[in-house]
């Protein structure tokens, strides 16, 4: 147990700069939620398995519970709050609603960010690879079938846009 001095960190979340002061041990997930007020990113296990806390860091999906806030200093972070643009839902958000890809919605932000990161890098991802990617996050309500459907539907739409 060590209580340490706080350090200044700049988190750039969805294009907005948050100058915060946190202990070096503070997780990025806690900093995003508690220090920056962006509570759309959820914490489900705090050891990197469930993926509820998935955010994009410089475009790549990352578990924000496994990073310290200081490690994200100055990096571009994207969270679920930044997906919709100008009041228009992201194709993934719309597809999750259309396909009933969520029930309780707790895991949803993590799945949305995971899928966003993957589809932006790999818009033509195969069905098999997609299931592999989606198996990195846990959902307890849907049985995954509608999540897979939703991501496929959104992928198609993102390709045609």
């Amino acid at each position, binding site marked *: 147990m060590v209580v340490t001095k706080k350090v200044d960190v700049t988190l750039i979340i969805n294009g907005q700069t948050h100058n915060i002061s946190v202990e070096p041990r503070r997780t990025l997930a806690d900093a995003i939620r508690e220090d920056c007020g962006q509570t759309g990113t959820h914490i489900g296990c705090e050891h990197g398995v469930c993926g509820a806390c998935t955010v994009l860091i410089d475009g790549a999906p990352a578990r924000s519970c496994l990073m310290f806030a200081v490690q994200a200093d100055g990096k571009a972070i994207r969270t679920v709050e930044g997906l919709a643009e100008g009041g228009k839902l992201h194709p993934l958000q719309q597809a999750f609603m259309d396909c*009933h890809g969520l029930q*309780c919605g707790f895991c949803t932000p993590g799945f949305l960010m995971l899928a966003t990161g993957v589809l932006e890098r790999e818009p033509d991802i195969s069905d098999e690879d997609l299931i592999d990617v989606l198996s990195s996050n846990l959902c*307890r309500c849907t049985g995954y079938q509608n999540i897979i459907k939703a991501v496929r539907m959104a992928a198609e739409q993102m390709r045609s846009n």
Partner: protein
Amino acid sequence: MSLIGRSVRRKEDPPLVTGRGMFAADVSFPRQLHMRIVRSPFAHGLIKSIDTQAALSLPGVVAIWTGDDVIDIPPIDFRLTRVEGLEGYRQRILATGKVRYVGDPVAAVFATDAYIAEDAADLVELDIEELPATLDASDAPSEFEPGRLTEPAIIRKGYGDVEGAFREAHAIVELDLSIGRHSGVPMETRGAIGRYDAARDILEMYGAAKVPHWNRDQLARMLGRDRTAMHLHEGHVGGGFGIRGELYPEDVLVCAAALRLERPVKWIEDRREHLIAANHSRQQRHRVRAAVDKEGRILGVENEFFHDQGAYVRTHAATVPDLAAAMLLGPYRIPNYRATGHIRLTNKTPAGTYRAPGRFESTFVRERLMDAIAARVGITPVEARRRNLIASSEMPYARPIDTLGTEVVLDSGEYAGLLDKALERVGWTTLQNELKSRREKGELVGAGVGIFVEKSGLGPFDNVKITVDPGGAVEIVTGAASVGQGVETVIAQICADTLGVDFDRIRVIHGQTDRIDEGLGAFASRATVMTGEATRLGALNVRQKATDMAAELLQCAADELDIVDGEIRKRAQPSGPSISLAEIAKHLLPTSKTRGGREPGLTGEGWFFTHHMNYPYGVHVAVVSVDRDTGHVAVERYLVAYDIGRAVNPMLVEGQIVGGFAQGLGGALFEEFTYDERGEPMNVTFADYLMPTAREVPEIDVLICEDAPSPLNPLGLKGAGEGGTNAVGAAVASAIDDALGTSGAVTQLPVTPQRMRDILDRALPAKPSR
């Protein structure tokens, strides 16, 4: 066009996909303290001393409580299925004298920051003298405390002449079957925020779920407050599944602390805590036997089972063993029956209900029994089932048995018809041929069937208050709860249809005890049935008030009027003059001159009472392949055929079934809480408690049927929540047997790869592994 029966998109979704949800951890108040629980590291032990000195000296620590500090607060009481003898086994909110499981709360730390609270918890020194742990519920009972054994009660149910049935039997089959300890494990861990508002003298708890009204009553009683001065608030809930929302020690602690420390107190569970402290479920061992005639017809069933309750008896009391004993009978005609269920305490996490409680377990047992009967009399498993199914002409079928305080009367069902539909849907005969030819080529593939009866719509009541405001917006306030299942959408669909208003104008408020005095919440697949019918009745009341006012204004009789899209007009004159519900609401304002002698407000209540549950039913068909080398069981195909009387929203029903199936699959193949010989839990992270991922859950086929509407409510509704889970263990076990060409190979769930390897070694000893 009617909205009932349409796959309307959910009202719940927009905030959830945009990160605007309000889950327990998202609730914060100025000056809030954070609570951290110090938990027992031993499965069983005597508390010698607890030293909080070092922890208290940490800057930011405000208080630390141990059992003595809350000794005035009574233990947590039973919500359901109270049976005599259980009281002495209830859990106090902090342990005193003894600890009884790893995870038992022994102290509560309150600090200004969650990290500091956790630091301080590490500094609390526990001196606990370890005692031997009781870990097997089927061992002879041991001492719980002087004068009390670890068997507080035995559930006994039955009827008929069981001895006679076994005397006259052509054959007797006997099985010894076990179901593994696993649980709901929602993605959101538990959380609770207590806040005392001295200005109004109101104590509030946020993070409520499932049964906010019952919890309000209990918290008020335990803390010595009027129930009108205790408010519970449900926000978004990240999954329920039976375990979330029950009253736990931590809920009481945050409320007590908010009162005593005069600051808001927030507690958010971490995942390790969740896996050792939130309710476990399912663990049972059944010694079952059946007497059959030479055609395989059941003459009688006798079942003695051991229910591993864990360290204390929590809110569910005897619910799970009670349901297991009553629902074991399933869809079959069983003329003589005796069940003896031993409730046993062990030094493990206390147990409660989990989706299809007592049914996932007893369906596994019953359907294993049907397979054994088939093998014994030389008929196919399907034929054995068919010969014993209750016929639709026998409905309603009263079993001389009760459960959850209600008589079991199977209200409606076309059991054989659904079996036919399911087999046709999967192409059973063709499938059998395909599997046979694959087996001849050396593959271990097989198919299995599980048939079951679910239960839903537990009463005794539900109620709603519906208000149309002068702007035309409709608000429905209900005591139901939402754990993610889509209750807002379903309730709005029923209201839109009945009242004649636009679905998008309806707002559904649930889980707020300050908005409605009574409510029973969301469990036992009750919300659509109970709250749905209460909504229909409430909407009819509003409709009557509206047409009564409109009749005067439109100069006609009320029964000549119809309401469509919020506009009231003569049924015979669809294009004639109309008046909107918003206008009617204005006419009914207290100050309105047109109101006359009518009560102010366009509002209505709906109360629905029932003394019986209703009984949906289903058929699961599994096709599995077994990897001879690794012991991995892959589900290649799966069908759930389910008759729910009437599907309000087929998309949501299917979602319930597929999601329920995934959880059933976890219990059948992957998920298990295991303990070492000292009672140390071995599955405390998601790395060793294995829930199915997108890789393990196959695409499944769902057949929703409406052949047997419930006669117990006018819409014919039955519940959808648990049918996807119920028979997964049963069907998968049957399919594994078929793959191996043996009967009775699977006696224990989950069939983990290790267990599958053992089964393979026993079942196929002669075949060399490749």
